[in-house]
């Protein structure tokens, strides 16, 4: 029977073939909790009568949103979760490793064909390795920790077939922003988005993570890239176990899709999502010259070595504008080390940036880097909602690392293709 990736993944776990619309209690291969939604999930687990989690080895636990603790309540949450991890025998990455989604993937905790839940909406990032991964609330997470399973309605899928070759300084972030602009902030609600086609096949793992990460910004339940040689090479390089890898989870072209969309990237311009919705997407040229007060390069969307390399290439030997704050936050310790060893951190600091330790950073307006009323942020993260990075009277624009770097040099939104 022809099937989408999502249908194949769930059929692989069920006693029968399933199709979109079916509802089932399916087992989960991993469950991720962090310092914001974890404490409530643990409370719910206990309220549900939970004594031992379903499988400590399948629980991914860390702190990333408020690290190092930015308040006494945050510190108390960390203490509570440390105790829980210790009692339950769960490996705790604590504040040491970085942003949950980057860490879950780079530690090999998520493999192709897995069904994964995380109490964070950007859990869909793990679709980059061919997993079905979705964000859930804390009560659902309490249930998953208790039973190792959760009710799933198998979503219909949208096929995003991506053709062409990116121009220099244009990449995955520009693509996914353009798709969100096309489908809208609720264009994929209750659906999985499958990113396929020649441009996806040649895209590296960080780029695929960027695309899948933002599936939620069009309402998607999951974003998935079919696992291929790039996936296998990535998993081999990080020393991930491969025993769980599922065969044949490539989507069938004649599967039933809710929509099939063709995208062409050859002439794609750098994109910017303007305030206050992620689907307000325009070419960078439409907002070029807009003054910014802060540029943030980082997050689970764009905080990897390759993102910093792109930014550093744009920066060259120039300096960042002294009139603005440039905040650089690697998504994980591992990405930080790669960036550091390549000399990029030194270059960024020389150029005037503030480099912070691996964390969510200014993305969600909690830990640091908040905006005052009237201020403007340009950010490589994933949300530009009103108030997301501080004051509700501030504005957040979203863009790629190349656009962020070009703009950080000039202090105004700048087309990265115009920077030598």
């Amino acid at each position, binding site marked *: 029977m022809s099937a989408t990736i999502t249908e194949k993944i*769930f059929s692989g*776990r*069920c*006693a029968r073939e*399933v199709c979109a619309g079916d*509802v089932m*209690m*399916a*087992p989960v291969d991993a469950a991720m909790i962090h310092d*914001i*939604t974890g*404490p*409530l999930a643990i*409370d*719910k687990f206990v*309220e*549900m*009568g939970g004594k031992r989690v379903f499988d400590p080895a399948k629980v991914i636990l860390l702190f990333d*949103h*408020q690290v190092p603790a930015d*308040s006494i*309540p*945050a510190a*108390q*949450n960390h203490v509570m979760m440390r105790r829980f991890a210790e009692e339950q025998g769960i490996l705790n990455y604590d504040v040491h490793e970085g942003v949950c989604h980057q860490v879950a993937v780079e530690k090999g905790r998520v493999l192709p064909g897995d069904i994964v839940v995380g109490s*964070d*909406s950007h*859990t869909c990032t793990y679709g980059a390795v061919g997993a079905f991964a979705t*964000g*859930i*609330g*804390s*009560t*659902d997470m*309490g*249930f998953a920790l*208790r*039973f190792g*399973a959760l*009710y799933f*309605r198998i979503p219909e899928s949208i096929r995003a077939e991506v053709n062409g070759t990116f121009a220099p300084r244009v990449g995955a972030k520009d693509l996914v922003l353009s798709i969100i602009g096309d489908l809208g*902030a*609720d264009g994929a*609600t*209750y659906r999985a988005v499958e990113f396929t086609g020649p441009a996806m096949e040649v895209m590296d793992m960080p780029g695929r993570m960027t695309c899948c990460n933002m599936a*939620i910004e069009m*309402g998607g*339940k999951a974003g998935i890239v079919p696992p291929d040689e790039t996936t296998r090479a990535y998993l081999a390089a990080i020393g991930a176990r491969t025993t769980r890898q599922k065969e044949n989870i490539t989507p069938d072209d004649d599967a039933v899709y809710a929509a099939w969309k063709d995208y062409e990237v050859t002439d794609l311009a750098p994109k910017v999502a303007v305030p206050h*919705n992620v689907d307000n997407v325009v070419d960078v040229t439409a907002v070029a010259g807009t003054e910014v007060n802060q540029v943030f390069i980082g997050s689970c969307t764009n905080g990897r070595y390759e993102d910093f390399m792109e930014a550093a290439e744009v920066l060259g030997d120039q300096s960042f504008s002294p009139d603005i704050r440039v905040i650089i936050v690697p998504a994980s310790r591992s990405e930080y080390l790669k960036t550091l060893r390549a000399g990029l951190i030194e270059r960024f600091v020389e150029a005037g940036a503030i480099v912070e330790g691996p964390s969510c950073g200014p993305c*969600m*307006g*909690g830990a640091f880097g908040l905006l005052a009323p009237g201020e403007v942020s340009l950010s490589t993260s994933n*949300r530009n*909602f*009103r*108030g*997301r990075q501080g*004051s*509700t*009277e501030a504005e957040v624009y979203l863009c790629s690392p190349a656009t962020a770097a070009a703009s950080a040099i000039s202090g105004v939104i700048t087309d990265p293709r115009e920077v030598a």
Partner: protein
Amino acid sequence: MRVWKFGDDVDTDAIIPGRFLTIYDPAELATHAFEGTRDDFAPEAEEGDIIVGGRNFGCGSSREHAPLAIKGAGITVVIARSFARIFYRNCINTGVLPVICPDAETIREGDTVEVFPDEGYLIANGVRHDIEPVPAFMQKIIAAGGLVEYAHTIEELELCTK
């Protein structure tokens, strides 16, 4: 039973900003609900009031703090033309009824609304509007009184692997 009317794409950062996420108590969360985007809500919302939104209500973060903040304000019904997926499920799990009403846009600020979920309609200022049924598997959770209570009724998990 005042209606608080909102537009499209009400996101969870608007419902409860990120800086309040170390709070888990619904009543305390409610004091910051819609802070900065609708400052009259927290002081004036009363038990039994109803929130009405447009498309894609509750988009964004998975933070359960969002329905908890609404519930803490005494509101147990949110009506919208459509909901973001995680928020919808979080509402069911925390005891807030998310009501999908294709005519939600016609309901106005201050209207009086009565919802009849089992009968599949609501009455807004005397006018009847159809509402969509809650999916069957979620009705079981609502009937149990929430996911925590539902969990206690499970004797053996009906896994799809069997």
